[in-house]
């Protein structure tokens, strides 16, 4: 018996929909995917509901058509600068008389941790489990171990109700249920940083058009996530202003000639803006293009370094920095990242089972959504049916249920 699952990422420049099929004993296969330009968003937040709705719906319809099936529910990626993460922890005393930890002890601790509510107007969108502590020692699976107290720690991401609601409404207006909301950076990390990288310690930076998502992993667990409201659009905007050209031409120049760092050994050359040799066309220097991009990218990594603070420790980031997202296509960006962050950086590689045409940096989040959804994110010892991390438990209040 196979199951169809869907994933949607409403990105600032593009809406992406993915349809996957899972069948017993077989890996996930992607049966449909579509991308549509999205003009209704800026910096990860919806400014024009109708435009966003249209692009999401056409992307979904096309992905469904390609797969020959229909999708009833989807996993939805969340990003935007309104999101913020914090650590939630709660503990439970081991209840059994023989001092062995049971699944119900863990569940009690988890319920306790999730009982906390953020301030008015905000809701938790995603709980990411951090290590479980048994009498203060981190353990992977404490069930059956002897101890007095289990402590459970979550990295809980909260966001503005109105922004989350807008995202849900886009999906609901297409008649879709949302299985779960997943933080974009966590989704991307699932795909581009495997368990071994996460154990060694890794910083994943997903550079989108509107925002840059980051997630840091240490000893296998997430330690910090963040969203910085600067992305590839800012690079294009800077170019438009600096070269005094209109936005679409700036975007084109960025994609064709953009470099994160100017190659000082190369001779400076001039390139035409529209390349149509019309009367209004001008030539601009490639050095001007790369200098404008360089300062913006350097600043972005400086902000990331500031945001991460002590988390940015080369000794704890054995696997270095992994860059993904559309803006990470910029040639030379990994050198700039290494230089500013002081940790070796490289562009992401994708697992080999993902087809070549799908294995593009801008697809990391949407592909990661499906992989994350399939991963076992349950508490140790919990039966499948008892899984209670669905969307209703998180934002039931928001939907009035």
């Amino acid at each position: 018996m196979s199951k169809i699952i869907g994933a949607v990422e409403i990105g600032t420049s593009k809406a992406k929909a993915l349809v996957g099929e899972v069948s017993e004993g077989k890996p996930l296969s992607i049966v449909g995917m579509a991308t549509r330009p999205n003009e209704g968003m800026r910096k990860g937040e919806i400014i024009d509901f109708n435009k966003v709705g249209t692009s999401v719906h056409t992307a979904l319809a096309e992905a469904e058509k390609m797969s020959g099936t229909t999708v009833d529910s989807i996993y939805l990626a969340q990003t935007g600068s309104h999101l913020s993460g914090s650590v939630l922890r709660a503990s439970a005393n081991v209840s059994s008389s023989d001092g062995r930890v049971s699944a119900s002890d863990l569940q009690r601790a988890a319920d306790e941790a999730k009982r906390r509510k953020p301030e008015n107007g905000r809701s938790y969108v995603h709980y990411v489990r951090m290590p479980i502590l048994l009498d203060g020692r981190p353990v992977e699976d404490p069930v059956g171990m002897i101890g007095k107290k289990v402590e459970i720690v979550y990295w809980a991401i909260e966001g503005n109700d109105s922004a989350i609601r807008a995202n849900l409404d886009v999906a609901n207006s297409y008649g879709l249920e949302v299985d779960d909301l997943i933080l974009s950076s966590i989704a991307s990390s699932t795909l581009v940083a495997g368990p071994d990288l996460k154990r060694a310690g890794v910083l994943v930076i997903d550079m989108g058009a509107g925002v840059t998502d980051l997630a840091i992993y240490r000893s296998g667990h997430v330690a910090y996530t963040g969203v910085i409201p600067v992305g590839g659009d800012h690079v294009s905007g800077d170019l438009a202003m600096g070269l005094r050209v209109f936005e679409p031409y700036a975007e084109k120049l960025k994609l064709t000639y953009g470099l994160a760092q100017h190659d000082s050994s190369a001779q400076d050359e001039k390139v035409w803006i529209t390349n149509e040799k019309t009367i209004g066309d001008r030539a601009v220097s490639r050095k001007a293009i790369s200098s404008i991009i360089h300062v913006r990218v350097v600043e972005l990594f400086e902000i990331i370094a500031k945001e991460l603070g002590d988390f940015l420790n080369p000794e704890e980031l054995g696997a270095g920095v992994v860059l993904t997202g559309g803006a990470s296509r910029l040639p030379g960006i990994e050198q700039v990242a290494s230089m500013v962050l002081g940790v070796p950086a490289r562009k992401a590689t994708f697992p080999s089972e993902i087809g070549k045409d799908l294995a593009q940096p801008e697809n990391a989040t949407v592909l990661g959504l499906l992989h994350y959804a399939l991963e076992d994110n349950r508490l140790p010892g919990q039966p499948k049916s008892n899984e209670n991390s669905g969307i209703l438990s998180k934002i039931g209040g928001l939907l009035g249920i």
Partner: protein
Amino acid sequence: MNQENFLEPSANPHLQDCPGLRAMIIGVGGAGTSLVDGLRFDNFDYVENLVIDVDVRSLADSLAAEKLTFGRRHTRGMGTGGDVKLARRAIEEEKDKLREKLDGVDLVFLLAGLGGGTGGGVASVVARLARERGALVFAFAPMPFSWEKSRHAQAEECLEDLRKHANAVIPLPNDSLLQIGGPDATALECFAEAGRNVSRGISAICNLIYRKGMIDVDFVHLRKAFGGRAGRTLFGYGKGAGKDGLREAMRELLVCPMLHLPDVSKAADILLIFINGGPNLGMSALQSASQEIREAFKAGEQVVFGAHVDENMGDEVRIIVLGATDLGTASPMADVAPPAQEVFHATSKPKETHPSRLSINQKEAKKMVSKRGSKKKTSESLEQNTFSFMEDQNQRGIFDNLPSRNMYEGEDLDVPTYLRRGVQINL
């Protein structure tokens, strides 16, 4: 020629009781004072000037004809040390002195560095008082560098405040200085260039009003266009020389660094175009240039167009544009000035009502007016192949429509990094 001939006294009751149109350049604070001093060399003989500061010593060094000190009680003749509130309190106490100076002034050019205490605090008060007395106020406001964080934030607040009171505010961000100067420009040259921008703006407006030209505009037109308006402004210039001088100037205008700054509007509801050139300035070329400029800035009906011939310019051509927009969303204008409309109605007929002004080339002007009229009707069908590729594009910056600023440690991340960090870009 006498200034009195420039205006028809009976047409404008407001100006009737004064001998001529009075324009005044007012420098406020240290930066404003040095800008006024810089302008002394630019032959604005017909414009009065006044400098206002709390710092007695800096005023004593100024070349301005009139000086006003205030706040002696608060600062004992020294500066405010960047304290906007102190400056504002001091000027409020001595408003009457200022009112006296502003009496009968019709046009005020206000120059004030908004990063300073005096400039930031007093500029909006001066603008308010001047408008209360019926003057049209154009403010040129140098803004501190982005890296001067707290000063920059203070200046932003003062700018908001000034926008409420002045008819048009043209911010001159120091961040842009590096982009304005040439590749090897020294700091001094960059600041001098900033001064020249102010001079360009003022001379464009003054030339429109005072000088006789091919296509004339008078103060009333200016007042109608800018009276009671606030919001975002744009200010740009371009110059060219040679056979294709006008075209070259157009090209330079469209890439003018002053037009490509955050906070500068990309479209204008009101547009003032001023073209200055040698005797060879062709009529049809002027027509198409003005049309192109209008389209480039998406200007509506409110266009004030002036063209002047200067024998000394040879084949050189200069274009200056000044515009304002966002009137709908702009913060409400403090309603203190006499309604511009009333003044205007008396003279709302075209140029012909000013025979004394155009006694020499009146015929040409009339021809011009009729030509302009016919041009308007056909403008939609006119083929604009040169710059038409810009038409369909979004004319506003991509982050322009966002309500909130993207602040991080006192810097707006939506503003290009190269501007904030002072990285020079040589095209």
